[in-house]
Each structure stands twice: as C-alpha cells, then as structure tokens.
C-alpha cells in the first residue's frame, strides 16, 4: 500500500525501499528523523489524512539538521512542514519552498507494509 501518492516517475526512480521503523514509533501529526547510512531523513505522519511523507532533514535556509522537529500542516490542502528555526515552509509534495524563496528540499515516497514504514530511496 502506497501511503503518499507520488508521481509515477518518482516511483520509477526508487531503486529500493528502506525499512525505517515500526509505524507505532512515529508520532502522529508530527515528524521524526530516520538515519539511513549517512543520510538523515525526516518522516511525517499526517494521521487525519492517513498519509505519510518524507524529506531531507536539512533545512536549506540556514543548513540546520532540523526539519523532523518542525510543525506540519497544510497550505490550501498542500501538505507542508515549517522549519522550527525561522518558519520557512516547504511543500511535502514537491519539496518547493512556499515562502517564495528559491531553495527547495528533496522529498521521498513512503509506503507502509506489515506495520512498518518504508522510505523509497535512490542509489
């Protein structure tokens, strides 16, 4: 079951699914940080929508490893995360900055299987 509806080409780009942790380990309606090798990935659980999203943990504005600790929500229906440092917000669909600034973040597809959260990664 794919929880986040990513576009077909993004799914095609997934070369493997990283088994992150049990669903119950993640907070509802908030973020948590997952370590995969040298990467830090922020995973967000939108419990009301029953949707999961993932992005890089680094906020590109001031290069802080922090997005997992940000508040999540939506802007006109588009799921987003707000960096706790300076409240820069990013779309979790496209990774685009929603304050009209020119940096963006990497996002990853997420799927849930047998009570585990998997993150779609590329080599």
């Amino acid at each position: 079951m794919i929880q986040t509806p990513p576009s077909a080409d993004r799914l095609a780009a997934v070369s493997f699914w990283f088994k992150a942790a049990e669903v119950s380990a993640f907070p509802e309606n908030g973020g948590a940080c997952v370590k995969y090798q040298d990467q830090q990935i922020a995973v967000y659980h939108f419990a009301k929508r029953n949707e999961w999203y993932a992005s890089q943990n680094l906020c590109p504005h001031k290069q802080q490893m922090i997005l997992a600790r940000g508040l999540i929500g939506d802007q006109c229906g588009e799921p987003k995360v707000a960096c706790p440092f300076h409240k820069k917000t990013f779309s979790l669909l496209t990774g685009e900055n929603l304050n009209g600034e020119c940096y963006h973040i990497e996002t990853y597809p997420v799927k849930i299987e047998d009570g585990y959260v998997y993150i779609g990664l590329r080599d």
Partner: protein
Amino acid sequence: MSRLVAQPQHIVVIGNGMVGFKFCEKLVAKAQPGTFQITVFGEEPRPAYDRVHLSAYFSGTTAEELTMAPVEWYAQNNINLHLGELVTSVDATTQTITTHKGESISYDKLILATGSSAFVPPINGVEKEGVFVYRTIEDLDAMLEYAPKARTAAVIGGGLLGLEAAKAAVDMGLTTHVIEFASRLMPRQLDEAGSEMLKRKLESLGISIYLNKSTTAILGEPGVEKMLFADGSELNVDMIIVSAGIKPRDELAIKAGLAVGPRGGIMVNDNLQTSDANIYAIGESALHGGMIYGLVAPGYDMADTVVTNLLGGEKTFKGFDMSTKLKLIGVDVASFGDAFASPATSRSIVFEDKAKGIYKRINISEDGKYLVGGILVGDAGNYNMLLQTVQNKIILPQDPEDLILGSRGGASESAGAGVMSLPDEALICSCENVSKGDICSSVTDGTCTDVAGIKKCTKAGTGCGGCVPMVNDLLNATLKQMGKEVKKVLCEHFDYSRQELLDLVKVNNIRSYDELLHSHGRGDGCEVCKPAVASIMASTWNELILKQATIQDTNDRYLANIQKGGTYSVVPRIAGGEITPEKLIVIGQVAAKYGLYTKITGGQRIDMFGARVDQLPDIWEELINAGFESGHAYGKSLRTVKSCVGSTWCRYGLHDSVGFAIQVEERYRGLRSPHKLKGGVSGCVRECAEAQSKDFGIIATEKGWNLYICGNGGAKPQHAQLFATDLDTETCIKYLDRFLMFYIKTAEPLNRTATWLNKMEGGMEYLRQVIVEDSLGICADLDREMQFMVDTYACEWKEVVNNPELRQRFQHFINTPEPDPSIRFKPERGQKVPVV
C-alpha cells in the same frame, strides 16, 4: 537571412538587474508560448536581485532572500540565462552581439537593460584601499570584509543612496559621517527645512552630517586614513563609501554607434527605441526626455512599454512621476508630485514639530482646488493618500491643512474620506501599474480574500512594497462594503480570532487541538494555529504540555531552547535572581559534566548551551535532584521576574524586592500566554531592576508598591505605564492576576502586553475600569481562573524525567539511539561553541 514565418523572434536582453528581470517576467506572462525566444546576459554571478532593499543585507537578509527569481525560474520559462558573461560588442547592422567568451548571437530585437554604475568623482586618492562604492552584493561583501578593521566610516554623498549607505555603515557598527556637496540632504527630494529636520534626526542617531563640503583628497598608506576638504578642514576615517550618484552604463551603446546624451545615457524615444529601431533601452541606462530615471517604478513602466509594443500593442512612455517614500535609518522621508512648487504658481502649507522631528509641506494650486505636491519628514503616514490626491486631481476639501494635520472637527469631517473616495483608475501600485479598480475587483469577484492573495493575482505591492498599507486598507474597505465582517482570523484553518477560539475551547470543554480542528476548523492546521491553540489549551486547562507534543513549537516540544546547530540550552529557574552557593556549584558541576557552554543571561539566570536532545532528560534529572527546576526561557510564558538587591542589604531599599520577586515568579511560573511575559521588582525609586521595561513592574514606595504594566524592551522598547499606586502586597497580586488573565484571554497571538494595550480602545483608563472597578463584571472569573493556574502548576521537566515513555521521545533518530552526527563544536575563549 530568410526564415520561416513560424520561427519565434529572438529577443536578447543585456543586463539582468531588476528592470531586465521585470522585462522578462512581463514578456513571458503576456506572450503566447513560442512567439519569442529569450536570451539574457547578466555580468554579475547571480540572477537579478532586489537592489532597492540592498541595505537589508547588513541587517541579516540573505542574498537568496533578495533574489527576484531563482535560476530555475528562467529555465522553466524557456529563458536562456547567461550569468557572469559580459557582452562586449553589439553590431547593429548584422544584428549580432559578442560576449567576452567570444560567443556571438544574432537577435531580432535587442533590449539594453545595462543599468548604471556608481559615479565616482575624480578625487585624489579615491583608488586607495578602504574606498568602496555601494551598488552590488559583491560591493557589500567587500565592505563587510573590511569593516572589522575600521572604526569610522565616511559616506560621500547625502542623497537617497548615500543615506542608504550610511545606514549600512551604522549597521556594521561604525561611527558614521556623511559628506554632502550641496547645501542640503537629499537635494532632489527635500527643501531646506525638510533637510534640516532630517539632519537633526540623523544626528540624534549619532550620524555626523557635513553640508557644503567638497572632498579634495583622500590620504593614507596603504589604506584610507584621512579626508581633506576644499574649505581646509579634514576628517580622520578608516573607510569611505562613495555614493555620489549614478552613471548610466552606456559604454556598449557608444561602441555600437547608438546616440547617447551629452552627459551619458542611451537616448530613447517614447517607445524606448534607441537610434536603432531594433534596439531598445530601459531602466537606468536609458535617457528619456533628457532624464535618467534612477528609481525602479519608472524602469518597470519602461519594461511594460517595450513588452506591449513587441506584442503589437500601443503604449508610450511619457515620463514618470519621481514621487518616492522611504524609511531612512528609521526616519520616514517622502517627496511627491511637485515638491518644490514655486510660490508664483502655488501656495504651501507647512507644519513643523521640532521636538518630534516632523516636517510636512503641501503645495496647493493657486486656485486652492488641487494638491500639486509636497514633502514629508518624520511621519509619512499619509503619503499614499496625498500622492493619490495629486495624481487623481481630487478636489481638495475646504480646509486642506487637514490633509497633514488631521481633521480637527468642524465642518470638514470628511476631509480625505479614505481610500474608497479614490476613482477606480487611481494607480495604487506604480511599480506594477495596478489600479484601485484592479485591486477592488479582485476582492469583489471573490478571487482574493487577503493581502497575500491580492499580491499574488494582481502583483500589487510586490515591487517596492510602499503601497501595501493602502492595499490592505482597500481590502478591508471593500470587504466591509460587501457586508463581510473584517475580522482577525487566526489563519486559513480557523475563521476565528484567538479570543473567540479561547471562548469556544472553554465553553465547549475542548481539550485537544484535533478536537478543535475537527469541530471548528478545517484542513491539517499549520505552524500558526497549532502553537496558538496550544497556548490557549495551556492557559485554559493547564495540562501537561507534552500531552500534545506535535502542536507545540519546537522549544515547547522539547522543553528547552533550540540553538544554532540543533542543540539546546537549559536555563534553570533562579527566581528573582537569588541563588545559594551550593546551587551555583551544582550548575557548574552539571555544565562541566556535560561540557556545556555557560553564560549569564539578561534575566538574572545562568544559561547552559550545547546540550544534545538526548542529554536533556539526564541534565534535568540532575538539576531536579539538587532542588532546581529547569526554567521557561522558552515558550510564550513567564520568563523571569528580575529584582534589585532590596531592603535586606541595600541602604536605600524600602521593601524586600527580592522576596516579592520570588513570590511573583513562583506564582506565575509556567503560565502560557499570547507572548512572553517578563516582570521586575525594584526596592526603591532608583529602579535597579529596570521594572518599567517589563510587562509588569513593581516599585517600592514609602507606603507600599507602585504597579506599572505593559512595557517591553526588545526591538520596539516601550515604557510600562503607571497603573496603580501605593498598593499593599495582596492588592498588588490581585491586580496582577486580573491584568495577566485579561491579557491572556483577549490578546491576539504574539502580541506583547504593550501592543495589546496600544490597540485597546480606551487604553489604560479602560483597563483600570475593568481591573479595579470591575466594569465588565468579570473580575471574579479572572481571579478564579488565575488561582486555578497557580494551583495546577506542575514541573513539566519532572514529568519527563519520571515518565519512561516521554523520555524515549528525547532522541535524535527514531531508528537508532546514536546522536546527531552533524553536531560539531569548536573552542572559543575557553568554552565550546557550535560550528555551523
């Protein structure tokens, strides 16, 4: 060369500044896809940025934030962008350009948006190290690099740009001098009296101003040390910023054989065509009707004119109003219409208040019917309205002085009946050419419901931003006309104000954010409503903050202050600033054990920095075992109650200010509020606790305590005002209880008590009636509600320490206990500081 009809026209733009960018933006927005192919050359290494707000770079705005559009924008719009590439020649006969890389490209139409460079007067020594111009981000970076070596700076030029540069020098912490050749500041915008007022204001801010002064030489080896002036005087400086005017970048046009003006500038006709019909010039490099326009709005209008003509439309550039408003080093300055109208054809009304530093002049046509122009210094609040009155030839009221003095009653109550009295054609945003009609119809047709929406769909307010207050007024007035109540809603997820939500929570016994969102909101919430509701819940039910961890702002979610690099700082509560030697030792031991950086705070506490998220519960545990609690140095909550030494030790002290401060701090600790709260208690009128700069300040008198409320320090300091005098301790606490609870229940989110009071109709007198005389009949409720808060207070850190499940949440990764590997420190002055 023959070509197919369907082939797109090739437009080459030389220059990627604000105007060059605006040309591209307008062209792609208006042209059918495929009609044009666009190639842009910019010689700077970065894409076009906002030069108007360049000085913001010195106060922390980044280069990215100043960027007009990212590189990707150009790609998305099929614009071929060449950055860091200088066009070296134009051949008008073959219609080709060549760059310094040797690349040649042919064009159908060429747009010269080459802008201007700083005009540097030929002064001896101007080439010395330490002399800068103020033009590009690279200039700014060079200044920032040099500034640490300098203590004083002189700006040559007291015009608009010169004063911007002076602000930059002040922001860099330098003693600043401004040298102006003319007899007044901003000679193009201000008259003698206006200049004098501005000069006084700037001098009161510590900037030295010299008028009628001409620099003859700059001395020093190798860097700047001294300036010599024509009148024989001299000035020792370490750094010089030349901002004496602009010089159009017309060298390429000259080389190409295009006609230029005798004092520079590429000559253009009303269509902005140069002497070659296929080549246009726009912005600061263009000379139109003998004028170089050094402002962004006329540049944008030129861009729009060329775009319209390229698309087969008809538009001519007919010159431009040079009205301008800006904030210079915190001082409003505006000049509009015919600012210097001669007494022969007009009469002027002048208002001057030297104490407040306000100068206003309006020029009125001889027949008294129309406003022709004016000057505002110190208060430009009604600039937009005055400018509109000039531009739309609005018939003046009987007492035109009301325009600058405000109505003083009498027959002309309607003077300047506000924005809605403007005609629909009135140009509100001159940068983007948006009329009042455009803005209002975007609201009436339902497209836009807020300023952000209007900015997005009409582009009004996206240029210099000067019209945004007026756009806001138009929005509110239009909504009101439509019968819609204009209310301060929290965000897109709740159509309620904070006060309304607080009532709903209380009346309906709503205990969680999700429940409130479900019953009274929509969507998934956001970073605005979540913390606001968290604060409301805490102020109403006083339950454990971490019960709803994911709606808290990060500091409240981790019960500590996040710092650079993602570590936290811990600030144990030291109520009233009183601490035993044993406890001081414990703080030292904890800091040493966890390798924390320590610093004394401004609120009489000790801050320990550099704790990893996983170390927080361990640190709290040690502090709690030693009789501490960690403190609220975070959150919208009570911070500290500062005290002076008080009567126990101080020979002047009247009462025990320390004891009272501790009592008050312990009473209100943990209290969540719309914004942070700070207090102070002083033992006598000498006020060593600086209590009058706090949200509440208590000062001992012979007979009891004087209570001051609604003050704050910070960016906009405001003194607390005297609320009641000679109170006994019990009454003082009672008034404080009511004041704080009333504030908590009625303020908008993130409004400090001072802002709350400033917005309150009736002000302090009204507040006194509510709190002392119980005019609303709510005092019993307020008393009970505050007592509930005091009685239900619990140490939130202890809850975490004693709860394994909560404790588990304090780790960086969810799938491994290891700490964040990206955290790094370096030593500085014997302690560690983050590397970021």
